[in-house]
């Protein structure tokens, strides 16, 4: 898959320009303090038997920008991601989200407090319609409580509101013509779009995307990248896992590189390609960036 990346991260576009400028002055070193971090992780450790999958000392994610978490296969990106989003439990470590200590908080509670994730293998709900998928994303629904679900008057108005919001999002992601189809009948790329749109229904402060480009054809990749950039321009914070360097160059404002469970480098995307540690991690240890190692977990 080749992606045109002649224009690098578009610094200066839209409202986050000020924040991007603040990122510019930061030293390119591991664990550097950000001016306004939304997520701060300390000494997060996860071990599977004898294998240390994640051992992150300190990392901060800046609010309002797109941060990429990259690394060769088996670097522990997805495991770290699962820990932060409450889908796995660490052996030790602490992290805060929006200033609150959320260590060990379960996935659904984190989602409620504004950290919404997607999955590497898209989890569209196949035997539910696209619009139902969307409406599921809305938070604090009165109709989702058992007793009030039996009284349509208690939730009909809210449901209508959610439906309108869902339809607007579907239109934006060009899925409106699929509104009443089963989500299982969507193409792989459309499912990625649906998952992203559904996550937005939850009004997240931080959107965590696990390999949003995996399995998406190049044409749709561009539109997906555009959507992710526009999320940032609207004030959302995005953290995504990726191992395609082209994609990373194209949209990220800041890059965190992991290898063998640790963060080995940080910096704006331009600085990463020339970082010796990163080149070693990608090429020295594994020789081939695309094939990666055999120790993928």
């Amino acid at each position, binding site marked *: 898959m080749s992606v045109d990346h002649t224009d690098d991260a578009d610094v200066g576009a839209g409202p986050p320009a000020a924040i991007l400028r603040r990122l510019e002055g930061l030293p390119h070193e591991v664990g550097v303090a950000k001016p306004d971090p939304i997520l701060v992780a300390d000494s997060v450790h996860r071990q599977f038997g004898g294998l240390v999958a994640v051992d992150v000392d300190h990392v901060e994610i800046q609010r309002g920008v797109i941060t990429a978490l990259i690394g060769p296969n088996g670097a522990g990106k997805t495991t770290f991601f699962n820990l932060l989003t409450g889908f796995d439990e660490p052996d030790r470590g602490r992290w805060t989200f929006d200033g609150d200590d959320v260590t060990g908080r379960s996935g659904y509670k984190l989602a409620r407090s504004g950290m919404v994730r*997607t*999955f590497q293998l898209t989890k569209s709900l196949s035997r539910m319609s696209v619009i139902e998928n969307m409406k599921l994303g809305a938070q604090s629904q*009165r109709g989702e409580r058992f007793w009030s679900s039996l009284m349509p008057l208690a939730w009909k108005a809210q449901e209508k509101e959610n439906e309108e919001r869902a339809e607007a999002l579907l239109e934006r992601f060009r899925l409106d013509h699929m509104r009443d189809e089963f989500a*299982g009948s969507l193409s792989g790329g459309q499912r990625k779009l649906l998952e992203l749109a559904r996550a937005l229904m939850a009004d997240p402060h931080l959107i965590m995307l696990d390999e949003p480009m995996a399995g998406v054809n190049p044409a749709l990749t561009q539109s997906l990248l555009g959507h992710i950039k526009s999320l940032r321009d609207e004030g959302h914070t995005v953290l995504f896992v990726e191992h395609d360097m082209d994609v990373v160059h194209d949209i990220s404002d800041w890059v965190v590189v992991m290898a063998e469970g640790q963060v080995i480098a940080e910096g704006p995307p331009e600085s990463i390609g020339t970082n010796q540690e990163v080149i070693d991690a990608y090429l020295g240890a594994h020789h081939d960036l695309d094939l990666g190692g055999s120790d993928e977990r």
Partner: protein
Amino acid sequence: MQWDLIFSNALYAAVAINAIGYALIAVGLNVHFGYTGLLNFGQAGFAAIGAYAVAVVVAQYDWSLWAAIPLIFVGGMLLGLLIGIPTLRLRADYLAIVTIAASEIIRLFLSSERFRWLFGGTDGLQGFTGDMQELNPFSGRFRVWAQSFGAYDLFMILVGWSIVALVSLLVYSLMRSPWGRVLRSIREDEDAARSLGKNVFSYKMQSLVVGGVIGALGGAVIAIGNRAAQPGNYSTTLTFFAYTILILGGVARVKGPIIGAMIFWFTITLVDNVLAEAVRTDSVPEWLPSWLQVTDSNFGQVKFIIAGSALALLVVFRPQGIFGDRREQVFDVR
């Protein structure tokens, strides 16, 4: 052969008390399996709890039947919580193992000699339906076509189908609400539901309790309608019949289990009557191979072989069941 008698028998079975009870039990299972994707293989246990909750306190402790009815709900709820708390956090297959074991434990307890003083052993309990019989406005015997039945049967059929209608209305309104949408999302992918802020454990528990209470209600209807609670009626076979009914009628459809129960009882009774009649009039064709020769001693088993094959064929040629949506079959469940 007396075809009119055979057919009226089969038609009667399709609306009689067992069809009603099985329909309710399958409606409960539909909440678990059809809507939430919970593999509950212990629905018979819920039904047994419902039946004995009423039978024990009325027959042994002289409660009024009406005072005992809330116990059906309490019993179903407690069993749901008891099974759900340790297993609902685990993978689906564990729930299947635990529920099937729990329902067997319940049945063996109910039929044990040690507790005969309470549960009546394998004979079960009788004489707890007096209050219901007093309420019966009908008297005498009734005859429709070649079928004759008693006043109490007619009364219980009316009461039973009213309960089925009410419960179906409840399930219908639950499932078209956002609450039901969360259940279906858990069936499709519980991690996705979790990532959207849904407390999956709590919803699975609610589903287990709601479906369990409906199952308990079905068990109680069977006991009250048959004027007896017997442990043999609540073996694992009941659970598997309920699954057959559910798949036959169409999973995750409100009318699926109801029509399924009617077809199930019609088919079973039809085959049973035809075989019994063939044996009685000695008209089993000579040319059938020996293993198909139906006799007095084996027609009970052959009945299930034939009925089972018929139901299997129906499922092969119409996998979505009678009311299912063909399109849903196209997508893998996982």
